[in-house]
């Protein structure tokens, strides 16, 4: 047997559960307890598209160094699901630990020789202590949390603090949970060698960071960004975004005296109606958005083309999941870039914002509304399931107290009276952005007909070629204007001069940063650039030009960001080397490091040269 793994504040624990068993809250308590000890964690739910009875997993990466990506590999498995036992046991790293309910004896063949087996008779303990079947099930989760706290040498006060916080408002339940915790903790201390090789130690590495999921963060961003209309249709993994918007609005957006709502949320009959309502509300001057995922984006295509062509500010939060079609609805991917960037028939291009974590989901969630109003066009905030539905440890939400909404070029009655003339599609300022009016503004001036058909600068219907081309060219100028006002890319220069670079975005960022550290330790130096928006800022093309080769890391099969780079920046595709992860699990640093190291070292042996014809 290999040496048992010994690690402090740097290991991965995975919980294998059955969904609907109440395990999620106990697992969350474990995660929060570690945070309360000042030790950073990255946690991920792996769950099926189902409500009760199927396997779920909760993976907690404990990492004092602060790496927030998924690491890969499991040091300790808490195997609570007989259905997935064999694969769960197989996933443990050699030298790792298996924690299981030993009430019923298991044949020796179902274990492994190269891991430490820790059996706790959880069912026996809870059956003895409780008579109600529901209580037996729920408290079993707290009993294993107690046993783990002893095995991992956790600060019991941190665990109790997490329990007390969880039951805030339902204080009656706290003593019973403390008792179950002590039950598990006491049994482990009495019967097992505590602690094991994996231990937790108080640290001061969490700081003022917050622990939150991206969907909540984006929804709060929409509240701060002044959104008043939300129309949506339930779809995993975006549902919790609309629900969080409702939760925050009910808390923050009601008239304090009357209780009347300063927001309107409609659960539409489908995604077509959702985006239709968003377009109608935005046309009429309200900040409005929808939240959806890939299949919804497919359904919204026609309206997105209308919003582009008729120039209506509309915000879409796309929490991406694994496609195509229904795909893997509860697994993550970054595979809607192309269908969002070029949504709808005809020549269209749209603004995409690419947040890396919940802190940026909040920031971009608010910025999206300013950008949509300023540019009078749809803006997509591209989350994915990994950011959207998992709690991330990230910087606290930040807000400039002096910030005001930028409603863009909107003429009110006084503005119309002062203006020499009004043409809805007239490029007065040379930036491609025309002036608009809201319905009901002025008795005589500023009314126009909004349409998806071609029109001239004064919004008059026309099928003449010249005004059509004139309008399409102006839309391109507007897209150029967008390049300088969308979030700029962020560079991470290598410590030493680097020939090669790497481009990455969104939820790959945490794993990428960790991979950069590991690659550097291997002697592979790369300049890195994190792209935060489409269209690309000029720095992106400059970055590619400054390097011999650029790796493009993304979570889809077809290298969609690379396609956008080649297409929009006219980059030689041979320069852009795809690094693609798309099995539905979040990308890991180990994967990126291996993929880049393999190609980088090959290049070291055979210098890269263009073949002569």
């Amino acid at each position: 047997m290999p040496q048992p793994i010994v690690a402090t504040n740097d290991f991965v624990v995975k919980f294998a559960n059955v969904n609907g068993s109440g395990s999620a809250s106990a697992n969350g308590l474990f995660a929060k307890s570690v945070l309360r000890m000042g030790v950073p964690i990255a946690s991920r739910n792996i769950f099926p598209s189902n409500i009760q009875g199927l396997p779920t997993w909760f993976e907690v990466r404990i990492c004092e160094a602060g790496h927030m990506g998924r690491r890969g590999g499991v040091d300790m498995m808490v195997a609570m699901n007989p259905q997935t036992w064999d694969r769960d046991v197989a996933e443990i790293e050699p030298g790792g630990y298996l924690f299981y309910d030993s009430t019923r004896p298991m044949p020796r063949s179902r274990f492994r020789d190269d891991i430490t087996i820790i059996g706790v008779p959880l069912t026996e303990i809870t059956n003895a202590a409780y008579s109600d079947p529901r209580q037996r099930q729920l408290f079993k989760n707290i009993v294993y949390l107690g046993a783990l706290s002893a095995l991992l040498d956790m600060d019991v006060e941190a665990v109790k603090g997490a329990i007390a916080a969880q039951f805030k408002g339902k204080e009656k339940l706290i003593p019973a949970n403390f008792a179950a915790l002590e039950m598990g903790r006491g049994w482990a201390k009495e019967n097992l060698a505590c602690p094991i090789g994996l231990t937790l130690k108080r640290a001061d590495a969490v700081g003022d960071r917050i622990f939150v999921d991206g969907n909540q963060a984006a929804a709060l961003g929409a509240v701060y960004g002044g959104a008043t209309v939300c129309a949506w249709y339930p779809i995993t993994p975006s549902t919790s975004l609309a629900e969080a918007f409702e939760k925050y609005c009910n808390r923050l957006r009601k008239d304090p005296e009357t209780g009347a709502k300063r927001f309107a949320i409609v659960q539409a009959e489908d995604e077509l109606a959702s985006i239709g309502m968003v377009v109608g509300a935005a046309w009429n001057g309200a900040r409005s958005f929808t939240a959806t995922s890939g299949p919804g984006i497919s359904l919204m295509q026609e309206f997105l083309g209308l919003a582009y062509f008729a120039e209506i500010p509309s915000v879409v939060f796309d929490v991406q999941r694994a496609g195509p079609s229904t795909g893997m609805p509860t697994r993550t991917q970054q595979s809607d870039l192309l269908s969002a960037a070029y949504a709808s028939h005809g020549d269209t291009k749209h603004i995409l914002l690419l947040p890396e974590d919940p802190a940026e989901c909040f920031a971009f969630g608010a910025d999206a509304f300013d950008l949509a109003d300023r540019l009078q066009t749809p803006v997509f905030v591209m989350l994915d399931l990994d950011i959207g539905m998992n709690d991330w440890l990230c910087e606290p939400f930040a807000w400039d107290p002096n910030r005001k909404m930028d409603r863009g070029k909107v003429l009110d009655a006084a503005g119309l009276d002062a203006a020499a003339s009004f043409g809805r599609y007239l490029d007065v300022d040379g930036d491609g952005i025309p002036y608009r009016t809201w319905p009901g503004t002025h008795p005589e001036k500023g009314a126009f007909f909004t349409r998806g058909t071609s029109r001239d600068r004064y919004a008059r219907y026309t099928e003449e070629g010249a005004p059509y081309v004139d309008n399409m060219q102006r839309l391109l100028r507007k897209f150029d204007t967008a390049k300088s006002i969308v979030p700029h890319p962020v560079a991470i220069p290598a410590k030493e001069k680097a020939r090669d670079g790497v481009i990455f975005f969104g939820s790959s960022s945490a794993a990428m940063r960790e991979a950069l550290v590991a690659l550097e330790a291997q002697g592979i130096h790369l300049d890195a650039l994190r792209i935060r928006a489409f269209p690309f800022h000029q720095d992106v093309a400059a970055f590619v030009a400054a390097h011999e080769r650029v790796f493009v890391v993304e979570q889809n099969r077809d290298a969609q960001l690379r396609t956008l780079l080649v297409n929009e920046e006219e980059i030689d595709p041979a320069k852009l080397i795809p690094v693609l992860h798309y099995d539905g699990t979040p990308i890991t640093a180990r994967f990126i490091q291996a993929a880049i190291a393999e190609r980088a070292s090959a290049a070291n042996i055979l210098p890269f040269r263009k073949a002569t014809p």
Partner: protein
Amino acid sequence: MSYLPKPKLHHPKLPTNAIGLTRRDYEGAISTLCAGCGHDSISAAIIQACFNLSLPPHRIAKMSGIGCSSKTPTYFLGAAHGFNSVHGRMPSVLTGAYLANRDLIYLGVSGDGDSASIGFGQFAHSIRRGVNMTYIVENNGVYGLTKGQFSATSDLGSVAKKGTVNTDQPIDLAAIAVQLGATFVARSFSGDKEQLVPLIEAALLHEGAAFLDVLSPCVAFNNHAGSTKSYDYVREHNDALNKLDVMLKRDEITVSYAPGEVTEVTQHDGSLLRLRKLHAGHDPTNRASAMHHILERKAAGEIVTGLIYVEPNPSALHEHLGTVPTPLNALGDAVLCPGIEALERINASLR
């Protein structure tokens, strides 16, 4: 049909309404529909109704989908914003617009292809939500812009211009609107201005989901023998339920009727709908019996028109949602952004 610009000048003695506007102030661009198209008569009725009610044109939002009917908002209320959206999706765009600003009057214009086929779902859901709107379907039973295919309101056995016989059951949008919970449902005929104008007026004053199914013959593709949506056929089978007079709060009510002859409904805004009964068995304030009556008359081969159902005290989506009286599009930073202190508290709760 005509590309000549409309002359702006009009006779100085044209009558004006309560807000000093003439009927001409409610007009739009010259229609490009076929000469004799029923839709143009509906546009004229809308103009007349808005003039009669003295509505400020710029406080009306004209919403439509795609098709001949959806083109018509260009031809009335030139001072109002219009939105010619995508096929079958007018109801969702109108719903969104209404959410943004509850103070405007929303006039949705659609066709039978737009509302009974591609947009059947949106038609249904906008009505069951109680969007405060006037939803007019200009119903000709045919796809005009694509030259004569049957629509979902074509009657069973109806013959197309090219000779095909329709074998599908028709969708009766008015009956469905009653079932869906519309609080105002009427049917009329583009050729009967006397009936149509007061129905549009009453619908515009109604503070809830008002639905009007207006039979509107297509002279190019559905006005031949064998069609059940032709001028001749509709005139022959038209069976009016009632005769409506709309009296505004400010109007003096002079004529009086014997009891049983009329049904009077006071709408929420104070307007009085006086219905002179033409059908003994029809009660326009009872949803179930109104439904029963129109199904019964339909079975007898009649096209019943008039005010089918009205709820005198409707409620609308904004009331259901509990939104503030101020239009959402008029709310500023001070009430929309919760501020830095609230954010600090949220940050603290996430640690």
